[in-house]
């Protein structure tokens, strides 16, 4: 079966079986511990990323339950105020920085290279590095929390509460460095995705044939690139204020308290769309499969995503309506906050039109999309309410806002994500998740979510502020809070059932074929799970729905080498072949680099000099990373 592979052997000369064997020899990740630590396969890293993000979701969920336990009754003493403040901070931080953003990027790390028809993500070693950085950041936050050093200043870390005077101890420093870890990893993945989408698309996949999830991730990645530097600047300034006595946020010495809020929300508002746009992409990619027709309004959908991306940078003041900014500015930001309703509306209308002219098939992923419609649109409506400056003065920082953003983030992003997991699980594992359990999961989560979060709107209007660890008996909030807490338990049961189904199905699920849903995009053109090299021969694309329009025959390109890791670079606009390019082999250097960076960042919490001596191992690791190894991949 294994023919001798010569130098410069091409795939065109080989039959399917020897081609598979040859490609496996160069693309497979080596077995054992070294292989696991050195892998640069986007699928292995993507799976790891997704699994880790869901672990953090579960952890964050446990914290939510603890909070609901405390708030179930007035004047409850289940948690001390100090612990409660750590818990809500770690819950928010964990959900935003360790779950929502990473899980969306993780789905992209796995899916984008398959959907654009290439063999690995661009910069695979950077991809490995980003996962290690993310993992360390998560361990840092949770490790600190477990030893009672968790941050207690909210996920937004407003100064002066987080500043040197009021945020005593190392808790805030840990929060700020956790930001550095997760932002480095998020930025790295964003760069990989941008370059993968722009330069590694299958021949013929011109801009108007890119799957909508890939478009969404491209826009998202640009938002990350433009938005995350703001939180890096902010957290660096905060660390400097705390550790070396700068005065960025100290009004007594010419600094400004609101500077923090401007910088944080310049990142923080786009952050919402960093989480939501991938979900838009998932729905746009899943929906056609279950209504049996191509998406309606491809171009408007792409333009809507791009304009959401641009508008998202004009909204940050929307979180600062009660800080007393000039009236004119407030009116401008009301208008721009309202304006984003238009592109969001276009997305909804296009999906409705797609369903209107389609023939729905009620499988679990589709049920999650229906749940999305119900919940997300309500979140969008309350979003219009908080976008109004005068209304926001009543709603801001009350439980109404807690309800609003959970409707948007859980309804708008987590429901599509879970639909996406049910949809792509067969591709990830080769096995289907259970349809019967899946319907229970979707139903339970949908009902329990609404029971948990809808009453919070009312609580907010009844005057209950956010982030309070308890409330007095005579406030009259007890009944609703108890109801919310009980519903939260059901919600947790729904998630538990989901985890059970995922773990069980990974081993015992029905085997899935290459394309179990009869979908149209390229990730379904290869085996489930895909081989290490993704595609034995790179697919050639002739329409936006390639698998629906080629009558069971996949047009492919030949001529790549099989004796080294080789993939194809194409032009940005028309995806015309430009060059054969090599892709790196497994290497341990990204792990060393991540560890060296960790030493530097953790050391800097204790002494600023750590930045100096910590730079030495980082430099050594990076030289090791980039020094050529003299393999065939080096040839040119």
């Amino acid at each position: 079966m294994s023919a001798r592979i010569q130098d410069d052997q091409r795939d065109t000369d080989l039959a399917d079986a020897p081609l598979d064997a040859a490609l496996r020899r160069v693309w497979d990740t080596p077995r054992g511990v070294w292989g696991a630590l050195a892998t640069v396969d986007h699928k292995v890293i993507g799976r790891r990323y997704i699994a880790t993000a869901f672990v953090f979701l579960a952890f964050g969920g446990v914290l939510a339950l603890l909070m609901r336990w405390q708030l179930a009754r007035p004047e409850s003493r289940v948690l001390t105020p100090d612990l409660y403040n750590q818990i809500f901070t770690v819950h928010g931080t964990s959900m935003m920085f360790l779950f929502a953003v990473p899980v969306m990027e993780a789905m992209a790390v796995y899916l984008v290279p398959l959907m654009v028809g290439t063999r690995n993500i661009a910069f695979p070693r950077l991809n490995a590095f980003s996962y290690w950085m993310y993992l360390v950041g998560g361990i840092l936050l949770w490790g600190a929390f477990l030893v009672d050093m968790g941050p207690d200043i909210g996920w937004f870390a407003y100064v002066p509460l987080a500043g040197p005077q009021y945020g005593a101890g190392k808790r805030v420093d840990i929060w700020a460095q956790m930001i550095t870890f997760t932002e480095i990893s998020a930025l790295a993945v964003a760069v990989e995705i941008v370059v993968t989408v722009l330069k590694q698309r299958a021949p013929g996949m011109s801009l108007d044939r890119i799957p909508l999830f890939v478009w969404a991730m491209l826009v998202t990645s640009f938002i990350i690139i433009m938005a995350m530097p703001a939180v890096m600047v902010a957290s660096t300034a905060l660390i400097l204020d705390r550790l070396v006595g700068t005065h960025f946020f100290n009004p007594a010495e010419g600094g400004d308290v609101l500077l923090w809020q401007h910088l944080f929300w310049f990142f923080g508002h786009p952050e919402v769309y960093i989480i939501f746009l991938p979900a838009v992409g998932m729905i746009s990619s899943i929906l056609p499969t279950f209504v049996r027709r191509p998406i309606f309004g491809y171009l408007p959908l792409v333009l809507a995503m791009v304009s959401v991306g641009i508008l998202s940078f004009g909204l940050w003041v929307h979180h600062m309506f009660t800080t007393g900014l000039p009236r004119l500015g407030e009116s401008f930001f009301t208008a721009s906050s309202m304006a984003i309703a238009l592109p969001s509306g276009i997305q909804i209308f296009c999906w409705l039109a797609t369903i209107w002219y389609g023939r729905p098939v009620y499988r679990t992923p589709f049920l999650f999309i229906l749940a999305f419609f119900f919940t997300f649109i309500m979140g969008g409506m309350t979003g219009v309410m908080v976008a109004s400056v005068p209304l926001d003065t009543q709603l801001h920082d009350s439980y109404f806002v807690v309800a609003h953003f959970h409707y948007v983030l859980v309804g708008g992003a987590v429901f599509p994500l879970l639909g996406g997991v049910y949809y792509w699980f067969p591709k990830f594992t080769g096995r289907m998740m259970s349809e019967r359990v899946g319907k229970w999961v979707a139903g339970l989560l949908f009902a329990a979510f609404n029971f948990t979060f809808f009453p919070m709107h009312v609580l907010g209007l009844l005057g209950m502020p956010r982030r309070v660890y308890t409330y007095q008996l005579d406030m009259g909030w007890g009944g609703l809070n108890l109801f919310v807490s009980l519903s939260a338990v059901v919600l947790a049961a729904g998630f538990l059932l989901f985890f059970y189904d995922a773990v069980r199905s990974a081993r015992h699920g029905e085997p899935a074929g290459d394309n179990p849903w009869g979908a149209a995009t390229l990730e379904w053109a290869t085996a489930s799970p895909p081989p290490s090299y993704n595609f034995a021969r790179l697919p050639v694309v002739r329409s936006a729905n390639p698998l629906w329009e080629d009558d069971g025959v996949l047009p492919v390109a030949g001529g790549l080498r099989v004796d080294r890791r080789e993939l194809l670079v194409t032009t940005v606009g028309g995806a015309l072949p430009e060059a054969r390019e090599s892709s790196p082999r497994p290497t341990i250097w990204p792990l060393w680099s991540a560890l060296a960076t960790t030493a530097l960042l953790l050391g800097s919490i204790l002494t600023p000099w750590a930045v100096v001596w910590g730079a030495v191992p980082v430099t050594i690791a990076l030289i090791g990373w980039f020094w050529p190894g003299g393999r065939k991949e080096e040839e040119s």
Partner: protein
Amino acid sequence: MKQDVVVDLSDLPMNGSGTASLTWWGTVAFMLIEGTGFALMISVYLYLGSLAPAWPIEAPPPEWGPGTGVTLLLLASLVPNVLLSRWAAARDLRKVRAGLLIMAVFGTAPLVLRVWEFMALDVSWDSNAYGSAVWMLLGLHTTHILTDLLETYVLAALMFTRHADNPRRFGDVQDGAMYWNFVVLTWLPIYACLYGIPRL
């Protein structure tokens, strides 16, 4: 799935150069990230300046000398840098080696002069918000000079090894040269900000 070979890629080059190179795009993406960072830091400087009743706060404007020296050195370095990029495009190993050594010198010189520039700010980072802003702005840019300089050293060393004569290496040199242009060009608005705004 049945496959039908419709495109032949065998005659394509074995690595992309210029805009056909993935690293070129990666470098551009990182420049976008860092450019955003610089823009934000300048915004912080201007924002704090707009709030303060007097700017600089309790300090004289920074002295012209060292900063202008750094600026001139950086601008002068563009000449060998552009030449280096051309030599790399022409894959002339001998000239590229010489060019990298020259660039190593041109990278080190402004870094040394920068020490005096920090002193010429005449304010400490912990004096007030003005001091914090100028130190962070200058520090951020210095970090970029430093990292690019290290890259130049490593690349120069690499070009004297067996790995040198490879189109990939010349591509790396070109990307490195592009990044140095970025470091020099981002300095100009920072220079204008640090030395111009306090004198307005």
